[in-house]
């Protein structure tokens, strides 16, 4: 019966109790020698968490600006179509500012993302 030494459940399928005890001791000794993997936590998110955190920061920087620009462009278009200059630009730029703030809050995970309401 060929078993790998790294198998940590020696008791099952091993008839000899002495062998089972020795395998159990070996497992414990190997566990003590193997360094524990670094704890991944909020403070130490590991290498993958670093990239994700940087990505999150980079995301937020342009969300607000994009909202304001889109609001401004829509407002300018409304002015151009209706001729009520500069009211469209003023109102939609402010709405764009609100939209941009919403984007920032969403990318920070502070506001739930938009979703289809459940049918009643």
């Amino acid at each position, binding site marked *: 019966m060929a078993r790998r030494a790294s198998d940590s459940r020696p008791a099952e399928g091993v008839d000899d109790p002495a062998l089972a005890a020795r395998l159990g001791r070996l497992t414990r000794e190997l566990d003590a020698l193997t360094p524990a993997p670094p704890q991944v936590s909020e403070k130490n998110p590991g290498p993958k968490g670093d*990239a994700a955190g*940087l*990505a999150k920061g*980079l*995301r937020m*920087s*342009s*969300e607000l*600006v*994009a*909202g304001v*620009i*889109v*609001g401004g462009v*829509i407002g300018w278009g409304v002015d151009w179509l209706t001729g009520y200059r500069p009211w469209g630009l003023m109102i*939609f730029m402010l*709405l*764009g500012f*609100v*939209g*941009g703030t*919403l*984007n920032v809050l*969403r990318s920070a995970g502070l506001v739930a*993302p*938009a*979703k*289809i*309401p*459940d049918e009643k």
Partner: protein
Amino acid sequence: MDPIHQFEIKKLFVLGHIGGVEIAFTNSALFMFAAVAIIIGGMVLVTAGAGNVPGRSQSLVEMIYDFVADMLRQGAGEEGMRFFPLVFALFSFILVLNLFGLIPGFFTVTSHLVITATLALIVFFTVIGYGIAKHGFRFFKIFVPSGIPIFILPLVTLIEIISFLSRPLSHSMRLFANMLAGHITLKVFASFIGMLATGLGVFGFLVGILPLTMTVALTALEFLVAFLQAYVFALLTSIYLNDALHPGH
């Protein structure tokens, strides 16, 4: 010495005219073809000789695959894997183009807004198209949040629509602005070295060590930015695709 000069589009040869508009093969197109050739060629070569025990190049390709697949699964769930070809193509294309830009004398394709905007709009219309195909016109209800008093509902809907429309803009601007700004900064700092040396003589050479150090450090930072921007672009793509796949959650 002009730091903008490096972004100039040059016509290599003219292919023809469509409706009075000249269609030319530019240096930008050349580098895009080169990037696609390197990605496809590399993948085909590596996977042709694939073994159970991966070699160096096979490990690299498998690492990129796992990286993108993990990101997509986290962003859009298991269903999101149907968009894996799109996300992987975007990631590898942007990554290779960004890294191309760091080779001296090479053209940085991703520093042009028209390229990044096109890529962002592909994602934008994919999200809308797939959302409507899957959920019908109920998809547009993501603009109408529930539980809002009726008299401020139009305002909130308008804000939601602006927020949705601003996505392709921020998506494309982020990549474009980072690449453009990074390359200009690098060029300006590098040109300080020459200016100091010609202007101040021996003393200039000594002071020139400072901008040289800065240039070396910035080059390292640009490598990080090149990877990170490709990652952010692909990550946001999978987050936006999640909206089309599960707008109810």
